[in-house]
């Protein structure tokens, strides 16, 4: 009987304890709140140009255990601004968010044309259809004086100043970037190059001449501006401008081409004959021509020769002080081979050495020996024949 009453008392105590516990900690029965929504931004503060649209992605999160119909609104946007939520193509006023899921929406804000340079705040509000649960998000949009991303074309080249000798071509590698938001075709114009030069614009890595180039919004393409100064271009600096133009959008790149003078002289003979005749021990004269085939004046041209021992080679005049570009001057060369020269061909070279340029010509000189002893030989034979004739006359006919 005692045991029975004990058990009954224990059960009663347990039941009371459970009841008390349930009353004190009701949360144990429901671990999450029944409903909750959040607005989660990607950026909270951005800066745009006056002409730009602000676009921001905002996520609507449902933290509750049931799906929620959420209305979206912008609380008192700054005056003049067009602010709205949108998907890719349409405006948005409400979304459905499943339990524990998120929904991305885009917040767009377009400032008025005369928007002052300042910071503008936008309060975004998400509220359930039954107005029970809500969340707000504050976003700041700053307006910059200059549009950070205006309709614009950018041109960049690594080496805007290049030097070249006359006649050789140079190439400017230019990167064009359409920084605007629209696709455009740009007209490419080169100005400032002298008329005799050859000018061409080619796409990078392609061999064709172009005068326009199409660039999609944000696209970058490379073009090569190729300039060839004509052969006889006098040295100097030549500014050249390269313009890309599409409607009101244009950009000019100022380049500079330095043409360096070429120093080049040539020694040759007026007839092109590269051999000369000479008699041993006698002076013979041959004509030589020095031409400046460069584009710059060559100063202080002196002459020398490579010759066998004992030979005497003189130049008249001995020096040319200045030889202008494309000028030709005749020089006479006096060649004297020594008396004892063996008859035949000899190689000599005649050199002209000017400042920064020199030229040499190999000449073959055919040396003959003088024939004065030949007459002596004939004389001896004549004397002998005369002697024989004398003997014939004295002793013959006997």
């Amino acid at each position, binding site marked *: 009987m005692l045991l029975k009453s004990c058990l009954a008392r224990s059960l009663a105590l347990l039941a009371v304890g459970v009841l008390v516990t349930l009353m004190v900690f009701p949360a144990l029965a429901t671990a999450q709140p029944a409903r909750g929504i959040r607005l989660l931004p990607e950026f909270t503060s951005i800066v745009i140009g006056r002409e730009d649209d602000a676009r921001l992605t905002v996520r609507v999160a449902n933290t509750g255990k049931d799906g929620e119909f959420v209305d979206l609104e912008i609380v008192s946007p700054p005056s003049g601004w067009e602010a709205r939520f949108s998907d890719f193509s349409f405006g948005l006023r409400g979304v459905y968010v499943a339990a524990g899921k998120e929904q991305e929406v885009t917040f767009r804000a377009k400032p008025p044309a005369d928007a002052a340079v300042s910071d503008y705040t936008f309060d975004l509000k998400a509220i359930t259809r039954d107005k029970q649960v809500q969340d707000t998000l504050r976003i700041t949009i700053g307006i910059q004086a200059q549009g950070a991303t205006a309709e614009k074309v950018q041109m960049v080249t690594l080496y805007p100043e290049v030097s070249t000798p006359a006649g050789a071509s140079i190439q400017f590698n230019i990167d064009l970037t359409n920084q605007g938001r629209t696709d455009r075709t740009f007209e490419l114009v080169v100005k400032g190059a002298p008329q005799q030069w050859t000018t061409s614009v080619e796409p990078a890595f392609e061999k064709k001449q172009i005068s326009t180039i199409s660039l999609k919004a944000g696209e970058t393409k490379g073009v090569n501006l190729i300039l060839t100064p004509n052969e006889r271009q006098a040295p100097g600096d030549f500014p050249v401008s390269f313009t890309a133009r599409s409607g009101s959008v244009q950009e000019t790149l100022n380049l500079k081409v330095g043409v360096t003078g070429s120093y080049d002289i040539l020694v040759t003979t007026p007839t092109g004959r590269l051999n000369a005749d000479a008699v041993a021990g006698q002076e013979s004269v041959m004509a030589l021509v020095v031409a400046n085939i460069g584009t710059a004046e060559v100063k202080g041209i002196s002459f020398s020769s*490579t*010759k*066998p*021992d*004992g*030979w005497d080679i003189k130049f008249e005049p001995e020096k040319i002080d200045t030889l202008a570009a494309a000028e030709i001057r005749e020089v006479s060369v006096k060649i004297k081979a020594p008396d*004892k*020269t*063996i*008859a*035949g*061909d*000899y*190689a*000599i070279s005649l050199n002209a050495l000017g400042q920064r340029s020199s030229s040499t010509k190999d000449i*073959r000189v*055919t040396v*003959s*020996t003088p*024939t004065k*002893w*030949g007459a002596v*030989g*004939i004389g*001896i*034979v004549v004397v*002998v*024949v005369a*002697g*024989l004739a004398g*003997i*014939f006359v004295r*002793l*013959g*006919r*006997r």
Partner: protein
Amino acid sequence: MRGMLAVFWKEVSDHMGSRRFLILFAIIGLAGLWATYVAAQSIRSELASNPDSRFVFLRVFTSSSGLLPPFVSFIGFFGPLVGLALGFDAINREMSEGTMSRVLSQPLYRDSVINGKFLAGVATITVMLLSLILIVSGLGLQLIGVPPTQEEMLRLLLFVMTSIIYIAFWLGLAILFSILFRRTATSALGAIALWVFLSFFMVMIAGAAADAAIPVNEGSPPELLVRNANLRQGIMRMSPTTLYDEAIGTIVSPGVRTLGPVLVQQVQGLIPTPLRLSQSLNLVWPQLTTIVALTLVVFAIGYVRFMRQEIRA
């Protein structure tokens, strides 16, 4: 003149018919042709590797094949022998046989005899040389197929003329000996001895004399070496053989630029090209005139001796 022509034609027909002449002609002809044939073979292969070389045709006469000397050397060697063979008994055999007094008893001037004999010898030599050269040229044309240029023909003509005059010198010398010596054997031996001396011993004597006068060794300064060489060459040039060799070597080899020793300074800048004919001639003009003068002088001495000789039956 008619008398001289009679002697001339008789002598020419004697020469052409004599066994002595035929044997010599056969020797020279066969040796020369064989040398040419062998040389042409090597020229042909040489030509295939170097087709733009100049004076190809002349090489038929100047190329040696290693075994045989070139054609011009055969002429230089055997030519004097032909001259000697044609002349060594020209006068003294007629004397000893007693035909000379019989000839001179004809209505005939005495100088017609010696003139006719000398000219007949020259004519025989000319015929022989010309025919040989033509045969060899024909053979050369056949073998290498390159026709001679104008300058090559001129050089060949000069070679023939010089050789005729040179052989005529030995003919004149032989006739002189046949006048000086009564016995044909003596005159033949004397002439051959002189030929051997001038052709072979002169080289040794010149070398020995030059070394004695200007001793040199390998370490001698170049000036001394040049003087020694010049002296030796000067002594050798006393021999008509040397003169002829130098003259012919220059005429048929256009590449020959100089005959004496050459200092290094002189060849600076020198391009090995052939000389023009006029320059080649200029180079050996002394040799040529000396050969002509020697021939005339030797003949003149023989002429004078013959005209003054006592001729008895």
